[in-house]
């Protein structure tokens, strides 16, 4: 298991020889196995209920969906890779790292709120931030902010379906949540992984 070591910035020139920390993943992890099992059981249930036609229906529908989102996934991956390359690692770990305090959580929240695009950008970029030195707290603030107060989904879906009043009101209610979630994340993380933090401090 190679854990991202936030204080281990690889200079840009070394990017070719060294894989960036945190973005090296096992191709098949437990999550993938659990999901595959869930999918197999669900597909079997669909087959029992609707027969092969039902299974094929969903397959063709999802395959066309899949081909539609592939270009966006590529864009998201490129965005994540470029961002992790051009962001100065030391600056990121200073302003979004474990010791960035409330300011780091606020920066994460602001970043999540203004990030364009959908999940295909938010998660690759969040993953890139983790890799270049943001801690779990600031990254949680960013992801939660993107999902709760980001304008993308609100403008495209929530306002047309739920109405402007409800949406704005719901966003106002959600304003404090990303910072709170990030703070709670930090609070729990330090207690769960005290060793990890001590190791980071040494380097």
């Amino acid at each position, binding site marked *: 298991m190679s854990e991202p070591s936030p204080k281990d910035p690889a200079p840009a020139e070394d990017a070719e020889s060294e894989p960036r920390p945190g973005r090296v993943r096992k191709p098949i992890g437990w999550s993938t196995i659990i999901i595959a099992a869930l999918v197999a059981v669900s597909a079997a249930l*669909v087959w029992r209920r609707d027969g092969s036609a039902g299974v094929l229906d969903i397959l063709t529908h999802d395959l066309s969906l899949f081909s539609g989102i592939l270009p966006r996934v590529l864009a998201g991956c490129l965005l994540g890779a470029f961002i992790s390359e051009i962001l100065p690692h030391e600056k990121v770990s200073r302003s979004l790292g474990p010791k960035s305090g409330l300011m780091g959580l606020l920066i994460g929240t602001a970043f999540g709120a203004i990030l364009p695009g959908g999940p295909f950008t938010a*998660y690759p970029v969040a993953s890139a931030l983790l890799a270049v030195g943001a801690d779990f707290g600031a990254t949680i603030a960013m992801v939660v902010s993107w999902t709760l107060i980001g304008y993308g989904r609100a403008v495209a879906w929530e306002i047309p379906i739920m109405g402007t009043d409800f949406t704005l009101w719901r966003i106002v209610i959600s304003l404090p949540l990303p910072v709170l979630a990030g703070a709670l994340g930090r609070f729990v993380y330090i207690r769960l992984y005290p060793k990890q933090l001590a190791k980071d401090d040494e380097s």
Partner: protein
Amino acid sequence: MSAALLIDILLWGSVLGVGLIAFRRGPPVFKASLREGSMDFVNIVPRIALGVIGSGYIAAIIPQEVITGWLGPDSGWLGVATAAIAGAATPGGPVVGFSIGTVALKSGGGVPQVVAYVVAWALFAFQRVILWEIPFMPARFVWFRCAVSVPFPFVAAAIAMVIGKP
């Protein structure tokens, strides 16, 4: 102009923007990140495929009526808890989630409960977690993020109760 087209323009515009910055740092930096991004893409595609095709089947065995049923006019904290679970279990994309929220509002669901539902959907909707978050993020981060987020549909409902209706 459709929202999807606007999103694509913003997205590729951002890619171009940061790509340009990387290019000005020198072609090796640019090439390295281009290769890195493409490798990430190649590695992620099988997981996305599993997520897209898989969540279709999972969604097919959780009918929307079940979710709507959970969002009855059950007021109080039990209603908030049910709404939070319903949000996490809602299959499909934003259209389904927000439509269920609207139906619940119109059919007499309490406002704090609907807020809890929408917030829980945004935080935990299983299809988004399976399809997007797990493939892109370290699994440990995803579970941690979800665990830490558990109180927040309730916090949102509490704020909604205090400040009143929209």
